[in-house]
Structure formats: C-alpha cells, structure tokens
C-alpha cells in the first residue's frame, strides 16, 4: 500500500492550499446521535459499570456467576426456546404467507394480512391470559376436551414455545408477504421455459431470492422470543428457566446479599448472545444478497 495514486498527490504538488471544503451535513445527524447516546449509550455504561463491580470494588465475579448454575441454565433455556421459535415460526410463517399470496381469494388474503398485523403485536399479560383461559389447567379447551387427564400442561417449555409461535408466525407472515409478492411470475415461467420443474425453480431462483428476507425474519423472531418477558412471567413464573425471568428475579432482590449486579451481568450476556447472532447473520445476509449490489 505504499504506491500513492497520482490523484492523491496532485493537490500537494499544486501547493496544498485547497483542501476539500468540510461538509456541514453531519450536523443533521446530531439529534439521532443524541438519541442513540441516551437510549443505548447510557444504559450500556450503567450495565458495564455494574457488571464489573461487586460491593464497590472492581470484579469479574458477576460475570462468572452469571455463567454458572441456574443462571447458565436460564441463558441456555432462552437461547434454545428462541432458536426453536425462530426456526419453526419462520418456516410455518413462510408457508402460510405463500399459501395466502397464491390464493385466489382476495378476501382471505386481506383477512390473514390484517390478522397477522394485529397478532404479531399481541404479547405480554393479555397474550398469556388468553392462552391460560384457553389451554391452561382449567382452560376452556382443556376442560372441553379433557386434556388435563391426558397429561396436558401449558406451563412448560413446549407450552411456552406454542404461545411464542402465536405471535411469531404472524410476524413472519408480515415480513415475507412483500418478498413473496416481489417474486415475478416471469421468473417462474422463464424457469419452466428452460426446462425447470417447480422444485428446481424454488431451488435455483425462488428460495435464493427470498433468502435475505427469510434470514432477517429468523433473526427478528429470535430477538422477539429472546427478549420476551411478561408473557413468560405470567404463564410459567419460575418453572421454565429463562434469562429474562432470572434478571427480574435478581433485580427484585431474590439473590445473595451483594450479588444484585448479577442481573446486569445477565443483561450483558444477552447483549453478547445478540451480538453472536448478528455475527452469524450478517455474513450470511451479505452472501445471500450479493446479487443486490
């Protein structure tokens, strides 16, 4: 990199008097930067500061604790649940979206899209209550079908997966429908015209074109499930180990004296997990979308 291009040396040769004028356009980003500092910067500083202090002295004990025993179980439980919800939700959401997009009934399409828009924002206590009333231990459906005697319980890992899918699938539908609409009928016909069958069309054209969107959807679903708290708290309390539940637990003082900052360490762990997900996602995204640039 020692070879300098003549373009760069030219101004210097000319006397160096005319530096390019500094643009003031960065000023427009000041409000955004202020927002970012307030909303992300300040909490991050607090988290970092708290994580690495115990009883007033600098220490890594919080981090070590957060990666042991019940805390580690909770963290892994969250990752497992979120990954399952993300993958299953993305698959089912995509198939549902494809069914809707190819349907000849306009009304069905409108209905599903509207419902998806609403349901994808359904969460928290109301969602938990809706499920408890329907499929809880004495829920309407549970009683009507006698599911409790068949060993059914909503208050475990699988029950939670089901409830999370309830808002994740609609979210995936909302995300992929525009992408599916963007698949031009000419592509399919051109593929057929070149001898491809339906599977070959999807394998070589349809799925690759959708991949950037699908990956984005998976990450979105993962994030949504990973960060969810209220629904899980209302439904399972402490019976399913989840990192958000553990954080709440620790924050409300349910820890050994002096270990309050473990909650902050757990938050940091969550940030790291999110970072790892992005570290996998971004290169994949870049690779799958290279034809867009």
């Amino acid at each position, binding site marked *: 990199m020692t070879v300098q291009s003549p373009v760069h040396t030219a101004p210097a040769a000319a006397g160096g008097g005319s530096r390019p004028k500094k643009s003031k356009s960065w000023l427009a980003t000041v409000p955004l930067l202020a927002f970012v500092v307030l909303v992300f910067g300040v909490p991050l500083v607090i988290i970092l500061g708290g994580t690495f202090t115990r009883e007033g002295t600098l220490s890594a004990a919080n981090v070590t604790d957060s990666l042991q025993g019940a805390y580690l179980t909770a963290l892994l439980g969250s990752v497992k649940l979120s990954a399952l919800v993300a993958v299953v939700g993305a698959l089912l959401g995509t198939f549902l979206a494809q069914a809707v997009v190819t349907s000849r009934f306009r009304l069905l399409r409108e209905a599903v899209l509207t419902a998806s828009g609403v349901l994808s924002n359904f969460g928290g206590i109301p969602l938990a209550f809706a499920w408890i009333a329907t499929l809880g231990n004495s829920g309407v459906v549970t009683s009507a079908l006698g599911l409790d005697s068949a060993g059914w319980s909503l208050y475990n890992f699988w029950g939670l997966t089901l409830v999370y899918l309830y808002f994740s699938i609609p979210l995936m539908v909302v995300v992929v429908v525009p992408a599916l609409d963007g698949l*031009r009928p000419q592509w399919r*016909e051109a593929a057929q015209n070149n001898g491809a069958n339906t599977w070959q069309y999807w394998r*070589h054209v349809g799925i690759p*074109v959708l991949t950037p969107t699908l990956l984005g959807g998976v990450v979105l679903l993962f994030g949504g499930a990973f960060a969810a708290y209220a629904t899980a708290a209302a439904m399972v309390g402490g019976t399913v180990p989840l990192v958000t539940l553990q954080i709440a637990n620790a924050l409300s003082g349910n820890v050994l004296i002096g270990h309050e900052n473990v909650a902050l360490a757990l938050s940091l762990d969550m940030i790291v997990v999110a970072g790892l997900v992005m570290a996998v996602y971004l290169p994949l995204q870049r690779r799958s979308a290279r*034809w867009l640039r």
Partner: protein
Amino acid sequence: MNGAKVELRGLRRNFSGTTALDGLDLTIEPGELIALLGPSGCGKTTALRCVAGFEQPDEGAVLIDGADITRVPANRRDAGMVFQSYSLFPNLSIRDNVAFGLRVRKVAAAKRHARAQELLELIGLPQIGERYPHQLSGGQQQRVALARALALEPRVLLLDEPLSALDAKVRVTLREEIRRLQLSLGITTIFVTHDQEEALSMADRVAVLRAGRLEQVADPATLYDRPTTAFVAEFVGTMNRIPGKLSGRTVTVLGQDLPVEGDVPATSDVEVLVRPETVIVTPDPSSEAMILVSSFRGSTSRLRVQLGDLEMLADVPGHDTVRLAPGTRVRVELVERPVLVSASSDVAAAVPVSEHDVV
C-alpha cells in the same frame, strides 16, 4: 433447417367472460419469422402462451412438426421464450442466467459455461458474464434473455413484445439483430407486437389478429398493398376514409370511377379506403381544397388537406414541399387502382384516420 413447423388449430380460450382466442388457425412454416399483430387485447399473448405451454386452450390444438403438444407441460416443450421485460433471474449472474437450462439438465459446469460464453458472444455481449441483471441496461437485458431462450437450441422461438420496454433507437438495432440471428439459426419464430412498423420490417409474414381470430396473414408487402378487409387496411399503415357511391364493382369517389376489390357491402353509400401515398395533390388556385398542415419527413411530406367537410392525409415527395405550403389551394385526385370499400357505419372497426404520428 433447424426450425419446426408450428400449427395452431382452432384455438379457443375463455377467461371468465372474455374470449381471448376465438378459434385461431395459423400455420407457421419451418424457419419462418411470423409477426402476430393486432390491437391490445386481441389475444396475441394468449396465443403465444398456448405455444409455450403456460396457457391451456379450452379447445383446439397446438402441433409442432405434426405432433400434438397441447397437453405437454411447459417445461418439456421445445420452445424458447423471451418475455416483455424483467424476466432474468435477479440472483444469478448473466452467465448463470444463460446457462440456467443447461444447469437444470445437469450439464457439467465447464461445458455449460463454455456454451453460455458462446451465446454471449452471439448476442454481442461477451464481457458481461460475471455481472448481475440489475447492472445491465434494458436492451442488454433483453439480449441476454434472448441468449437464454436460445441456450437449449429450441426449434421454436417465442417473443412477446420483447422490445416494447426499450427506447426507439435500441428497438431498431435490436430488432435487426434478432432478425439476423433468427435467419442464421433458421429457427421458427413467433414475434408478438402491436407495433406495425416492427412487424412489417422484420417478419416473413404478418398475421393480423382481431378479437381472437385470424383476420389476415400475408407477407408485409401484400398485407400493406392488398389488405383483404377494411380492418387490416386501417390497422396496417394509415388510411383515409372518403365517402363514395357504389354501383356494381365500381365506386365513384371525388369524381373518379375506381374499380373495387375485396368484399362489397350491401349499401351503395360506402367509404373508400385510400392510402395517403395514393392521393395526388397538385396546386390549383381555382380549387376548393386547401392544405392545412404540412409535415416534412425527409423523403416525403405528409399533408393534411381540407376538402369540404372532409380532412384527408396525403403523402407527397419531399421536394414538392415548397410548392405545397399550408394555405395553398390544391386539386386532389386518387391514383387509378382498385380500392377497398366498407359500409359507412363500419367506422368502429378499426383506428380512425387521425393516426398517432400525424401532425
């Protein structure tokens, strides 16, 4: 000869109420380039899609070299198709687009890349194999689409208005190129267009469609000079409609008696169809008629002449333009040759005299 013979027999297709094809019969000879011409909605695309296999006719059959392929699925037909626009696979490089059909057929990578390169050279774009479709201009994209359609060496080539999304200049060069390629490959080609100039300049024969039926099929010169129906006469080229009186097979128009060819309507009040280039205009200060507008086109000038209530178009040699300026009184005559006539009420049959490119 690499081309196949294509026969459309009594094709009929209904779309919930609208009849797209209403018994279309057409035979395309091996190696021929035929243009399907007609107003919007007359069924050109539907006919082409029946040949490609994307559309199933309700009745009738499509035959390739005598074999009925009506029920053969699209991906097993021996016809390459170029779509109107945006049909290249966006996620594949140009080379992979062209080689797509070979990949589907599991041809080895080296071999299909070589073939793709060959085709890219054929269309005059040997250097763009690594690029992606969105990095090409519209004209380049259509060339690549053509290369892709030719990759499997089909014996029939189908083009559905492949040039309509391009600007005029690219359109002309590209259509010449398509024609050159088509001739050198000897591939039977069906070219859908609603641009009559495109049809007349490229095709061996032009088939004019009207409401899902074949109106006339003939070579360009015959179609222009000897249209068999008023519809064709008006759709292809520009036509004046001048009132006349019919008696037997002679019509009296502008004081001249001219022989009539083609169908003769039952009424005696008819309109005579006259091409602008068969109208003779000479300066005559004592005449009623007057030139309203003159537009110079190089070798010819098109005049709009007022004659009583009537306005008509006349093409005169370019060098006469000076004598025939707007405001000049002129005498109008018709060249003595057989003319087509239609009943006066038949005006809705085709486009009116006011052609789009007229001053």
